[in-house]
């Protein structure tokens, strides 16, 4: 069995301290596919607004926005997961990470689901576009399978290294 990533461990811990081993997840759509992320770390969802491009950064780092006086970095998961982009009516999901707030562009919200730990397969070895460091697991819902991701992990240290070398 593969060892759990740090994001997966954090999720297990959250499940352990939750009532009846169940947590709420926010389910959203990007590029026609369904993804989910823990509601615990989701701060808010805002309408898409102009994103200021940032020099030097990797393509999926979209730029920064002004969130009530705070400058928040925004990433585009669709670029990261190589999914088709539709700019017309997207939303920005604001999540909390250990380093502060981070925004992620998503196409639409689907629902909020309460999911048992037993419904999530953390070791699934399904071929997935989601890079391993922010893959939390596959949730088996009644009618579908949902990729669970850790959004704040989507900007890996590897990405930041790429950035550092391109800048210098």
């Amino acid at each position: 069995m593969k060892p759990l990533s740090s994001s997966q461990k954090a999720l297990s811990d959250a499940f352990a301290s939750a009532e009846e081993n169940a947590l709420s997840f926010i389910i959203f759509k990007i590029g026609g596919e369904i993804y989910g992320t823990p509601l615990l770390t989701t701060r808010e969802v805002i309408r898409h607004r102009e994103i200021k491009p940032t020099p030097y950064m990797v393509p999926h780092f979209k730029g920064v926005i002004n969130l009530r006086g705070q400058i928040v970095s925004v990433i585009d998961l669709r670029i990261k997961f190589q999914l088709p982009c539709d700019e017309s009516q997207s939303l920005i999901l604001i999540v909390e990470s250990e380093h502060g707030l981070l925004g992620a562009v998503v196409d639409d919200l689907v629902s909020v689901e309460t999911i048992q730990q037993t419904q999530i397969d953390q070791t699934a070895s399904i071929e997935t576009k989601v890079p391993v460091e922010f893959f939390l697991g596959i949730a088996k819902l009644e009618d579908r399978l949902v990729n669970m991701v850790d959004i704040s992990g989507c900007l890996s240290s590897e990405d930041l290294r790429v950035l550092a070398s391109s800048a210098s």
Partner: protein
Amino acid sequence: MFDFEDDLKLAFLDEAQSLLDETEAAFISLDEGDRSPELIDKIFRLAHNFKGSAKTVGLVHLSNFGHLFEEVLTQLKKGALTPEKAVCTVLLTTLDNFKAYVAGLKVDLTYVHDVSEISLKLNALKDGTSAVAAMAVAPPEIEVGESRAEVEPAELAKAKEVANFQAEPLIETRVKAVEEETLKVGRKKLDTLLNLIGELVVNQSMVAGFRDQNDLQNPMAIQTLNVMEKIVLDIQGISTALRMTPISPLFQKLKRIARDAGQNLEKTIQFVTEGEHVEVDKIVLEKISDPLTHLVRNAVDHGIETDSERMACGKSAKSIVTLSSVQKEDRIVITLSDNGRGMNPQKLIAKAVEKGLIPANEKLSDEQAYSLIFKPGFSTKEQVTDMSGRGVGMDVVQTAISALHGHISIATKFGEGTQFTISLPLSMSIIAGMLVGIDQKKYVVPISQLVETVELNHFRIESSTGRGQMFKLREDVIPLYSLPRLLHPSIFAANEFGAVRESSHRPALITALNGKKFAFEIDQIFGQQQIVLKKLGYEIQELPGIVAGAILNTGEPGFVLNLADFLHEGSASEAA
């Protein structure tokens, strides 16, 4: 959770801090030769209050130590003890012990400071033993300094996240000598408030934009908006003043440092301070402390000759070091001048060549030669003294100052003295910025970094292989960099020589670093603006050339550049 008694103690410790600061100032006057009965009375009163309050809140050990101190001061008051140099040193060292004690108590209310050694000295003074004998039992002063550093680590104070902001009402006609009532406010609360006010200002100006485009119909709404605009402006003014605090405590600390350093090196120094009332942002005050300490130590150690050297060249033995501050619009200008030996430009150049910092045949003006001291790895004194040669060079001072959006310059005359001039923004939260367009994006360059702006079409741009582009502006040959290329290299990688240029204008910003000028080409100049600085997310905090974020007055986010970051060694050839 604190019980009532602990609350009392904590309140006392805050009071104690200011009592000690006041006492230190009085001792320094005493040390400088002021023997007036008023001064001695004042010292006595302060010490008495300190002892009494300590006893009231139940800090018995501290109070006993205070009692011993008071007894020595009684001898002083009676005239049985003369405040000669050695006596003043013991008294100041005692104060250091008090400060360490108070700092220790702030962390742990049961803290007991070891005062045995200093008590021996005080007892000697009290019993009328000569001051020299008192010094004989004295441990070296440095040890005291070090033990003090142990108990007051800056992190501890920071961890509490409570800054002592002096929330003064903004009344211009401040009654002098009457202490104003102050409140302590947590730094986080204050930052949140300032953040929200910043947002309020931005939103207000957006609504005002609707009014200006006749998008508001109701005349009452327009009238109300006009009133609101004024109120918001006032609130913004007050909010920036909330973080302001006088520079006097720092000046006092530096005075003490100069005094101790002068005494260690046996140099007679008169340290003069001017303009202590100027107020700066608390953060600026904190961050400028180390660089200024370094400069003051340097002035006393390297700048000032020994008394005998001074007499030999016909100067008075007593040297004068002046530290002054003045407010100039939204900046504070701090000058530190001495009438010491000054700098010899030829010696500086020779040293720089020897250290391999500049090529041997490089021709430098005197001003450029003086700026050499800011180069990393430069130090003119052969012997590293324990005073200022701690591996921290002037380059560190300069880096610290430019991190505060400030700059430092030097004026010196060989044989006559040296003057450092530091100019800093009063506030770290709002700066005057030049809004420029680079590759169709808006960026902010702090006005403090700019010397002038030019239109490149009026100049002949020369390209030279390996050295990039340059042009001649009056008498200077100025290297030219392209900010669009530096910030967006990928766009230009494929199209190295034919940059896309829609406008016929070619504006450029001129900046100066170490006496040399550099030009940065941009696409457009929008004009000046007051810019509210913002922290950037962790992902983009280390981007080269970008020092902060900003919310522009249209509400959109922007980036604040530091032009000096683009001027690192070797980048000259890649740039243009």
